[in-house]
């Protein structure tokens, strides 16, 4: 079985061989020119124990937003498996216009303050809008340099998670 996986914007090809039981056994995985003998056991719907060349790993694997979240030694990886569905997804996701940034509410809350108005130039890292949630005021920032194209909310408005607030270009 050969899979393409996407992590940190890089694609890796994995070749998986010889695993017999579906919840635990030993097999071989090749990634590029690296070969791993993998002894694994699924202990829980989310929990995998892997022993690879004597080293013992505990990985939690869960589905999150169309990709796999993998927690390994306290580090979290977001990994997408590029099967047919995945490839389609990737194509459809690419439809966000290049150079545009939509600043959305990361959680349900209330718009406390707009720090910019349409047409304002903003630097990367500059605060754009303040949303209150969990007893805290959270300043949402621009991740790109650009100008404010559109403001979709007003101060005092309640917003839902994922709702677009400000669009930069």
């Amino acid at each position, binding site marked *: 079985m050969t899979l393409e*996986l996407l992590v940190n914007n890089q694609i890796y090809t994995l070749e998986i061989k010889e695993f017999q039981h579906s919840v635990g056994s030993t097999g071989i995985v090749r990634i590029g020119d690296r070969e791993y003998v993998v002894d694994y056991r699924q202990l829980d719907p989310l929990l995998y124990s892997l022993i690879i060349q004597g080293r013992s790993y505990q990985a939690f694997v*869960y589905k999150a937003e169309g990709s796999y979240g993998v927690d390994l030694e306290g580090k979290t990886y977001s990994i997408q498996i590029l099967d047919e569905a995945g490839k389609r997804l990737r194509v459809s996701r690419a439809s966000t216009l290049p150079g545009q940034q939509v600043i959305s509410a990361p959680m349900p809350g209330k718009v406390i303050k707009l720090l910019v108005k349409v047409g304002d130039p903003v630097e990367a890292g500059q605060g754009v809008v303040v949303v209150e949630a*969990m007893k805290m005021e959270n300043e949402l920032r621009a991740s790109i340099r650009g100008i404010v194209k559109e403001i979709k909310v007003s101060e005092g408005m309640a917003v839902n998670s994922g709702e677009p607030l400000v669009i930069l270009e």
Partner: protein
Amino acid sequence: MFKKILIANRGEIALRIIRACRDLEITTVAIYSEADRGALHVRYADEAYCVGPPPAIQSYLNIEKILEIARAAKVEAIHPGYGFLSENATFARRCEEEGVVFIGPSSQAIQAMGNKTAARKIAIQEGVPVVPGTEDVIEDDRMAMRFAEEIGFPVVIKAAAGGGGKGMRIVRNSRDMESALRSARSEARSAFGDPSVYLEKYIEEPRHIEIQVLGDKYGKMLYLGERECSIQRRHQKLIEESPSVIVDPDLRQRMGKTAVRAALAAGYYNAGTLEFLVDKNKNFYFLEMNTRLQVEHPVTEMVTGIDLVKEQLRIAAGERLSYSQEEIQLHGAAMECRIYAEDPENHFMPSPGKILVLQPPLGPWIRVDSGTFQGDEISVYYDSMIAKLIVWGRDRREVLQRMSRALDEYKVLGIRTTIPFHKKVMKNPHFIAGNFHTHFIDSQFLDGSTGYPLEEEMDADELRDIALIAASLAYKNRKDSSPSTPSTNRNILNPWKWMGRQQALRRGF
């Protein structure tokens, strides 16, 4: 002792109080908002009543509704926890009027010490050092100059009408005073519509150190050592410890006695905390008093062995403190890391959501005070603190080692937490050496664009490969087990399917 009390709070502190009550065989009554029906504190209490809709103002802050439940459930006392109504003098007074014991100080003491200005006045009367300042608004620039020279530079100009750094200017010498006053006033006017400013001595790189006191209703007041709380972000504490590396026995005794004097002057009883700033020369300045149990009370408990919540219950029930100041000894060292549902890599932005996996660390000298459970939904309505990890050791070095280990063991999946950030702090050489102050986190860890970036892994390449292997095995299992149903996201997570498969594997031996 009380037979039955109500806990007017939620989350980890409600659990903490229920546990103390269970130790003392006191029946507990929980209240919950509609968002908290499934919460841990509801299940752990003996009784539970809905107090209103999710927003705190309609539920956990609804004084009359809480008193109504207290009456109906026939409780003798109410523990307010921290936050919510814990420092609300009106609530304390209403409890007194209803004949329900408020597990805390009297409403008068809350009024006296809960107000920053009033507390400062009491402190000054009692000879407790405070940060020197004009107290009143500066009308005359020459008076400001004279005052600055009296208390010594640097000084700080602050806006009377507000906070958040607006209208604030640090002045390091007399030459800059005039222009600083001018620009501070102008900024204060545009920010708050009020140009009034006042002057205070500027404490450079101060430490935030607080003294825990415990007093009964008969005038006995004890201090239980200090807590070092300088590790903060956005003026909220992240990590606390006791003892503080800079507090020696002499300073501890002087600060302790000062705290006791101030608390007694306010007619205080119950557990209370006096916050101080301590400068580089170990001068300490009273800031304010918290007239309640603190979030970070466990570090004091760990080094003194005294259960502060049980003491609160005993004091409120009219019992006398059963030990003397001499019997309070600090053993070893303790530290607390607050686990917030926040993303440290994104400016500590709240990260509500469902907790898919929760595995607290176990083993020697590890304490977890948690208000959540695996499968719980962290709601957006309340504080983002979901747990506290407390560690004890014979000395600070042992504590740091053990804390690193415990943080490694702590698994909270599905939401972002401050756990990885704490791990990074534990490895910081300044923190390890004990060299830090209240601006430490921002000065050491803040990165303008991403927030507080986490450490890079040394063996990142190998770990990434392992992660890829884990993901592909999970994917393969899902495909193998359901060839007919194409990619339903949940299949992989069905625990009963794999249980059957596991049994098949076991038979394969």
